[in-house]
């Protein structure tokens, strides 16, 4: 019934602190945040003022360039503050939650009776739309484009990632309704990739692919590349499986409750577990009393692609996990823990450290130290080992660094997102921030070629 994709190039980074399979509920945060910065390249246009009351699902701002794309409140309460940067750029919209949590009702029909246009409007108006991202550029999808397909990964292979078949075990019906809805939108081209034997393989109305292999097998970019790669002028949409369930919920109940389940893990978490939270909750509420050390890095998202947050920060829109790892801001003597040490505590994809000799069951506590200084590219062939695309990662990165637009186009920039290069960035001997370079390249493409 399905096709199998196997991913051999890549790397599973085995970190300490995997979340236990138990879900805890966290009451809604006193303050919830919606940040325009979570949406790359977005210029927000506010439709509310400070002090106004909102419900879950009320529009807070929309995309200035495309007013159909609306961003809604994840909580009900009062707009507390609109935080601006020095040049008045909007950084955060803070919403004070009330205790009632009322949700805005939308007018929904059955999925089968909803036309494609109605479906589009419903997703846009309900604020689910920003969950749909597009390739190229890795930004919020433009509803005026016709996608070649909607791609959904039912698993996440990144370090300490949440297990969606656990999170959504009770919500399989909603996932199915959500998939049906997307099916209307994409004229039957909905691709769902799953691990073999997972519950998601039973889903209807989708084109199944079994994906086996190591990270980045679960990344949507990897899957799109192996299923139906994006060429210039084409668009592929993708959406997280939890947001598919949210669409299902919208059709079931007529509203979206603004909640999601996240995994909290990492070596500095006392009791790694799953938590039901409100989108945009504050990190300190989620992590209260659950942190071991004090010199730690709070990451909204996974260790490879997430955003660094302070304790007073808020979980990002697209993130389904929080990771806390030790900071590495101290000197390490070269013979003991430094560059010439034996390095049994280091996790390396190269064979310069004994990682490859250690049993696969050993998990590592890694800190945020770069383990070396930035240099020009010297080593060749190492990025290719963790990059399962028919794309030359080093050449593409160099094209991005040198702002060579033709080069980037030719070498496949339309297919990739910064997150696809996360492992390349991890293994890079010369410590180049490859994701940043790729994002810069994509920004250039966005301004020059789209």
């Amino acid at each position, binding site marked *: 019934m399905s096709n199998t994709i196997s991913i051999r190039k890549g790397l599973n980074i085995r970190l300490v602190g995997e979340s236990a399979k138990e879900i805890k509920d966290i009451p809604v945060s006193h303050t919830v945040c919606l940040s325009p910065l979570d949406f790359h390249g977005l210029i927000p246009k506010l439709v509310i003022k400070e002090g106004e009351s909102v419900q879950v699902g009320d529009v807070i701002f929309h995309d200035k360039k495309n007013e159909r794309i609306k961003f809604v409140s994840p909580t009900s309460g009062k707009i507390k503050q609109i935080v601006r940067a020095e040049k008045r750029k909007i950084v955060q919209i803070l919403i004070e939650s009330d205790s009632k949590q009322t949700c805005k009702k939308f007018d929904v029909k059955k999925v089968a009776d909803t036309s494609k246009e109605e479906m589009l409007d419903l997703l846009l108006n309900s604020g689910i739309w920003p969950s749909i991202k597009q390739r190229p550029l890795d930004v919020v999808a433009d509803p005026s484009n016709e996608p070649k397909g909607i791609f959904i990964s039912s698993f996440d292979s990144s370090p300490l990632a949440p297990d969606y078949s656990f999170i959504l075990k009770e919500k399989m019906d909603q996932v199915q309704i959500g998939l049906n809805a997307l099916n209307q939108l994409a004229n039957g081209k909905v691709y769902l990739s799953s691990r073999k034997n997972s519950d998601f393989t039973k889903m209807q109305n989708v084109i199944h692919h079994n994906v086996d292999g190591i990270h980045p097998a679960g990344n949507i970019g990897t899957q799109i590349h192996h299923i139906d790669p994006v060429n210039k002028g084409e668009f592929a949409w993708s959406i997280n499986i939890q947001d598919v369930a949210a669409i299902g919920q919208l059709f079931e109940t007529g509203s979206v409750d603004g909640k999601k389940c996240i995994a909290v893990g990492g070596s500095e978490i006392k009791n790694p577990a799953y938590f039901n939270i409100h989108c945009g909750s504050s990190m300190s509420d989620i992590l209260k009393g659950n942190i071991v050390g004090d010199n730690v890095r709070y990451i909204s998202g996974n260790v*490879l692609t997430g955003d660094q947050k302070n304790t007073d920060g808020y979980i990002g829109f697209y993130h389904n996990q929080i990771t806390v790892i030790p900071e590495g*801001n101290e000197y*390490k003597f070269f013979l003991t823990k430094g560059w010439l040490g034996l390095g049994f505590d280091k996790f390396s994809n190269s064979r310069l450290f004994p990682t490859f000799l250690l049993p696969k069951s050993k998990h590592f506590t890694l800190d945020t*130290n*770069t383990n070396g200084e930035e240099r*020009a590219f010297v080593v060749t062939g190492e990025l290719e080992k963790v990059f399962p695309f028919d794309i030359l990662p*080093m050449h593409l990165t160099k094209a991005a660094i040198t702002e060579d637009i033709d080069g980037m186009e030719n070498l496949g920039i339309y297919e990739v997102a910064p997150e696809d290069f996360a492992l390349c*960035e*991890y293994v890079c001997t010369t410590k180049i921030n490859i994701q940043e370079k790729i994002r810069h390249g994509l920004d250039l493409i966005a301004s020059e070629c789209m």
Partner: protein
Amino acid sequence: MEPHFIKGGKYEKWNPLFETMATFAFTPKLVTNKGSHIRDGVDLKRTMMTVILALIPCLIFGIYNTGHWEMAVSEANRNLPYFDAMGAKFLTGLGIVMPVVIVSYGVGLGIEFLFGMIRGHSLHEGFLVSGMLIPLTMPADVPLWMVGLATAFAVIIGKEIFGGTGMNVVNIALTARAFLFFAYPTSMSGDKVWMSGLGDKMAANPESVDGFSGATALGDLATNMSDKALVAGQHVENSHEYITTFSQHYGPFESFMGMIPGSIGETSTMACLLGALVLVLTGVGSLRIILSFFAGGFIMGLLLNAIGGNPYLDLPAYYHLIIGGFAFGAIFMATDPVTASQTANGKIIYGFLGGFLAIMIRVLNPAYPEGVFLAILFMNIMAPIIDHYIVQGNINRRLKRLKTT
């Protein structure tokens, strides 16, 4: 101490020096801020240190071999037993080789620091390897000032004007070797330079070394065997005879072990293979390049055998892989990631052509018996072209996909 060296501090301009020392002793406390929050343990320092480690067998054997031939010269006995008086030979060799190593590192690192200070960055690790490779490619009798000059030339012209480590077009150590080869050919070739002290002794008292040949295997091949007929005024029609005589002097075992005269570090294929083992096991050196380089050399050797005609052409193909700097070049020079081909398939082509050309130059142009370094330099320059076609292949695959959809 650090505050003195940071921007605005008392010794601000010495910061690169300070930083180099500090980052040598301690992995710095730099942390990630964007993108991937954790990073692989590997860095350029460890990578380069591994290459130096891989060079140690060559260095140690080179020291001993140099000591042996110095003693052979002083006793005017080319057939001096190889494994006698090992301690003394090693010490003699140490006295000859260490100054070369020190000059190479001293000059090279000095220039690197200078550029580091001008550009405001700490020492980039590339030269740590080049500084060891340069002495190993030198003949034992090389004057120290030449080593210094060649190193300076290689670092400035070969690397720093392109932007430093990672930016160079051709291999640094080979640039130094080539510079000397073309600037001071008499000190770099012929049959007097390969054994320490031989040149001086010949000049002072020719009779004491009468009948003593200081030639290398390649030198003998190039001068005596490529020119079909004449050795010592006598015509010998039979290639076979030459080769038999040749293999009496440079037996396969002696050549493989490196017990023959030659540049300091190049003679022992055995020591090179030990280094290759380290490089390949750690993944620092490209197995693709090493294997294809050997394959290219061997196939060219077989081709030449097939043509035949003079003793050099008839020399068994495997011999080419164990004499001269072939193994050393294949393992340590051709694999330099900066100057080699950067794509997986490109590496195979690059290595193969490198080995192929090395033997071609060596045999067909007796003026350059050591064709390996010329071949590698040539392939360094060709590597971007090879990569261009590989990259173009990748691009075309993508374009084709666009057309078919």
